[in-house]
Structures are given as structure tokens and as C-alpha cells.
């Protein structure tokens, strides 16, 4: 196993009365693409700022590559950040921005210019070196910020919602590029995001942050397929929660269950379970939402409760699916996809 790039132990940080980070323990491995995923206000950005050194914890310990850095200033840590608003220096050219970290560390001019150009090439911005940041588009600024943070080859690169300001197409393209870049340079990336799709596509591992604490840490598949809490189940992807009477009746034993909408098949009422491992429930279609590539069915179950099912539009068209509203259907899923959540 590789070494540990970042270790957080018993980390607490409060602003005024409310703790933004309330007792976080976390280990991030060397060379990993790690995401801190959570809604706004969950404390994920505070966590990032604690790692970068912009905030000092009230309690706890931060280690970078085995060295304690808890009390060190940002300029004493081998960590660089890509800021949410990019924070490019407006009075410097793109090249000067990228070379800034090297200039501060007194790298000779010829070398730092060469490395800045190379870093710009890595983010596909050759020839933009002489421009001012305000002459660039949002996506280009984002790349400059990335080049500036990467050029010094830090131990860890922190990314604070780096794609938040980009439009959907560009964001998806940058997700792919960012992942490729991380593989290429082999630096540990820690990404803060509220976008579950972003976290799922790019990360090796994800920590889901909920009200200042880590709700679950795991690979994207683990997080998605086997959510540890109701919060994780509902925040990562769309989830159906079954509980109480309904859960008991359908799943056979009481508890709270989470079923992903795409795991549920919508069948005609007369269809039965094909295998003993299948669970079924009948109900009436309350809502049909045509999504283009798929259709979302919201079904009111006969015994109470409501499930959402997602079907790929393999053969159906919008006109056909709309006719399902109000019809009787049978929902079927594999029992192992109903994940029991701890109460």
C-alpha cells in the first residue's frame, strides 16, 4: 500500500457558536483522487481550508506526508489550492500568475519561465502566457489556476469546487481532463464538491460530509451502492427510502431501506417475480417524467408509500410513456439492491 498523504485526527473547528467541522478523522492516500462531497454548509470547504492552513483547528491534528503541520502557515505547507473563484492575480499576465509560486521560491527566471510554459501546455493553454486573466474565458481561467497550482509539483493539490462556475458541457469535459491530468502527474488531489456526479465520476475514494462530520468514506461504488446512512443515500444520487409498515411488508423485516430508482423495473401488474431473489410491489403510476434518455415513474404503492423508478427509453417514446399515468403497475427489484440503513 502507498503512504498516507493527509491524516486528520479529531479535527474540530467552530465559527462562533456552531461547529463547522465537528470531530473529523480521515486518511487520504498518496496519489489518490479523493473527494469531499457534501451540501453547502456541511463544512467541506472548512475542512479544505484547514488542510491548506488558512484556518487553524480548535482541536485535533493535521499531518501531511507523516509530518505534523497543524500550526504551520499556508506558505509552510507543501500544498497548493485551486480556488473556487480561481483567485488569479489581475495585475499579472497568465505566465506571471503560473510562475508566481516559483518566483516566490527563487527559482531562476529562465527555469521558471520554461516550467510555466510547460504547465500551461499541460492544461492546453499554449500561447496564452502573455494575456491578462481578464481576457480569458471562465474555462481558460480555471486552467490557469490549475497550472499555477500544479507547476510547483506540490505534495497535495486541493481543489475547491473548481468546476462550479463552468457550464454543463465544459464541466463534463473538464472532469475528464482533470482526472487524466491527475493520473499523469500522480499528485494527490483532494476535491471539494457538492456535485455528486462530479465526485462519482472522478474520485478514487469519496468522503461524504454531513454537518461537519464524515458520514461515510469509500469508493464511488461503495458510496452509491451501499450508503451507510439515510443522508448518504439521499444525497448521493436519487434514492427511495422505505421505512415503517411498508418496509416491513415488502422487505420482510422492519428497518429503513434505500433502493436506487434505476434498480427498479416497471412491469405490467400481472407480471410475477421471476426469481425468488426478486421483491415486487404493486401500485398506481402517480407521475411520469420524460427525461429524454430515460423516464422517471413515481408510483404510489398499494399499501402506502411511494417509489421512484427510472427506466431507460430503449424502445418507448415520450408520447407512449405519458399514457402510463394512472395505470396499474408492478415494480420489481433484486433484494440485494434494497440496502438496509442503520437506524
Amino acid at each position, binding site marked *: 500500500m502507498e503512504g498516507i498523504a493527509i491524516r486528520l485526527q479529531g479535527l474540530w473547528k467552530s465559527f462562533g457558536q456552531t461547529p463547522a467541522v465537528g470531530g473529523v478523522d480521515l486518511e487520504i492516500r498518496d496519489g489518490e483522487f479523493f473527494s469531499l462531497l457534501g451540501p453547502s454548509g456541511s463544512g467541506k470547504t472548512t475542512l479544505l481550508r484547514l488542510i491548506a492552513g488558512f484556518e487553524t483547528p480548535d482541536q485535533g491534528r493535521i499531518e501531511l506526508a507523516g509530518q505534523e503541520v497543524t500550526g504551520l502557515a499556508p506558505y509552510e505547507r507543501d500544498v*497548493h489550492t485551486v480556488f473556487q473563484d480561481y*483567485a488569479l*492575480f489581475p*495585475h499579472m499576465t497568465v505566465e506571471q500568475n503560473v510562475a508566481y*509560486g516559483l518566483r*516566490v521560491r527563487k527559482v531562476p527566471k529562465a527555469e521558471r519561465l520554461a516550467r510555466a510554459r510547460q504547465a500551461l501546455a499541460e492544461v492546453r493553454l499554449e500561447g496564452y502566457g502573455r494575456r491578462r486573466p481578464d481576457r480569458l474565458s471562465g474555462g481558460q481561467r480555471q486552467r490557469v489556476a490549475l497550472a499555477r*497550482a500544479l507547476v*510547483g509539483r506540490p505534495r497535495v493539490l486541493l481543489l475547491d469546487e473548481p468546476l462550479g462556475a463552468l457550464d454543463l458541457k465544459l464541466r463534463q469535459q473538464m472532469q475528464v481532463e482533470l482526472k487524466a491530468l491527475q493520473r499523469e502527474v500522480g499528485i494527490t488531489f483532494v476535491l471539494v464538491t457538492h456535485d455528486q456526479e462530479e465526485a462519482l465520476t472522478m474520485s478514487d475514494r469519496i468522503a461524504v460530509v454531513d454537518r461537519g462530520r464524515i458520514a461515510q468514506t469509500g469508493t464511488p461504488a461503495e458510496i452509491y451502492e451501499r450508503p451507510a446512512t439515510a443522508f448518504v443515500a439521499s444525497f448521493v444520487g436519487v434514492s427511495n427510502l422505505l421505512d415503517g409498515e411498508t418496509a416491513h411488508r415488502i422487505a420482510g423485516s422492519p428497518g429503513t431501506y434505500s433502493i436506487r430508482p434505476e434498480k427498479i423495473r416497471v412491469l405490467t401488474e400481472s407480471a410475477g417475480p421471476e426469481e425468488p431473489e426478486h421483491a415486487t410491489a404493486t401500485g398506481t403510476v402517480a407521475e411520469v417524467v420524460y427525461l429524454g434518455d430515460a423516464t422517471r415513474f413515481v408510483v404510489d404503492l398499494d399499501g402506502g408509500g411511494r417509489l421512484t423508478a427510472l427506466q431507460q427509453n430503449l424502445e418507448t417514446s415520450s408520447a407512449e410513456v405519458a399514457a402510463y399515468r394512472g395505470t396499474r403497475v408492478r415494480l420489481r427489484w433484486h433484494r440485494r439492491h434494497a440496502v438496509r440503513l442503520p437506524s
Partner: protein
Amino acid sequence: MRTEAGRDPGRRLAAILRRRPRLRPVLLLTAPLLWLTVLYLGSLAVLFVSAFWTTDSFTSQVVKVWTTDNFHALLTTPVYRQVVLRSVAVALAVTVLCVLLAFPVAFYTARVAPPRRRPLLVAAILTPLWASYLVKVYAWRLILSEGGLADWMLAPFGLRGPGYGLPATVLTLTYLWLPYMILPLHTALEQLPAGLLDASADLGARPARTFRSVVLPLVLPSAAAGSVFTFSLSLGDYITVQIVGGKTQLIGNLVYSHIDLDLPMAAALGTVPVAVIVLYLLAIRRTGALDNL
């Protein structure tokens, strides 16, 4: 509807302006443009033209004969040259002192003080501007008088106040124009995104380096904008120097003393600060300060 619109003059005007968009700036700018061209530029032109006239030495009457004698005298008489240089030096000294004093104050009001208290601090900085200029200058005359506050405070250190003279003039002018420097610096520092300071530290810069490479270059245009005020106000002043300057003469005093006896010479002297300030503005423009005014 038509008749109703026709009766209301406001609506009729609005309708006309809608149909003729070119009328809008005409309506907006006629009065201020008249003011600017006739009164402001006009008087400047008269000043400039009359600088080329001359005076009858017996009657002190203006003689409208074209001559460059006044400018010739201005450039060749050592006293005039000295006074011009002294005035520019005073204006520069005041500006430098204002920058040095205003920066820490602005840094405190914009970035250190608790955000809730900042508007109050800015208001406090502005309060001296509400007091009469003359009252403030006479207050400084009292402070700097023999055995006055300055002498009294410096006495324990075996020192004395500067008394009346050139240093007193610089000191008083610095006091007078300081708010004009603090305000733009405050605004610039307040608008400086905290993210830029974080980014600089993140890339390995210690605070001194961040200050030199990020803060200073970004507030410099605002300091230059403030210096337009401190420099031009100092260059044009002639009252402060009369009250606390002792025998010191600046351009303004020369203009004042020539006005009754030799108006064309006064006009020629008066063009000097105009020329100096135009040169100063041209120099300042290169810093981008004028985009910030």
C-alpha cells in the same frame, strides 16, 4: 389614450424622446456643458490669453499688446524659478507624507477593524472635511506657535516644534488633504479580494512577499488617484502658507501679490500650476489611476 397622452406634458416629452433617441444626451448635457465651456474653460482661456498681455508701469492698467515678456521673466528670474520649484517640492512632499500616513490607517479601517465598525471609522476620517478650512489652519497656527502644543509636547525630549515656515506648511497641508488619500486607499484595500492573499500564501509567499507582490501593485493606482488630490490641492494653496508658513512664498502667493499691480504677470504665474498638473496627470495616467477615479 392619445388625447390623454397629449395633455400631459411629461408624457409628451417622454414620447418625443422615445422617437428621437439623439435628443436624450442633448437634454441631459446642455446645462453642464454650458457651465463647463463658458465658465470653466472660458475663464481658463481668458487666463491664458491675458498672460500674453502687459501692464502700463505707471497706471498698472492692462495693455492688450501681445508679448511673451511675462513667460520670459518667469523662466529667467531666479526668484520665480525658485518659488515654482519650491511649490512643486511642497506638493510632492505632502503627497508622499499622505501616502505614508494614509496606508496604515486605510489598512486598519479596511482589513483589520471589525467589519461592523468600518463605516463608522470611515465617517470619522471624513469629519475633518466638514470643518472650516480656515479654522483648521488657525488651529495648526496655535499648535505650532512659540510655546504652543508642539513645543510643549517635544520639550521633554529636548526638542522644539518646527515653528512657522516651510516644514509647518508641509505638515499642515498633509493634515488637510490626508482624508483624500485615505479614502481611495481604503476603498482599494477593502475591495482587494481575500482570495488573492490566500492564493499568494498558498503558493509559498510570506506576508512581506504578498504585500510587495500582490497588495502594493493592486492599491498603487488608488494611491496615484489620491495623489491627484493631494498634489493639486497643495500646489494651488496659498492661504495655509500665509498662516503657518512664516515668510515662505509659494506660487499662489506670487499670483496673489501680482493680481492688483500686474494682472498679466499674475496670469502667467497662474498658468504654471495648470501646466504642472497637466504634466502630473499625464504621468499618473500611466499607472491606470485615472480609470479608478
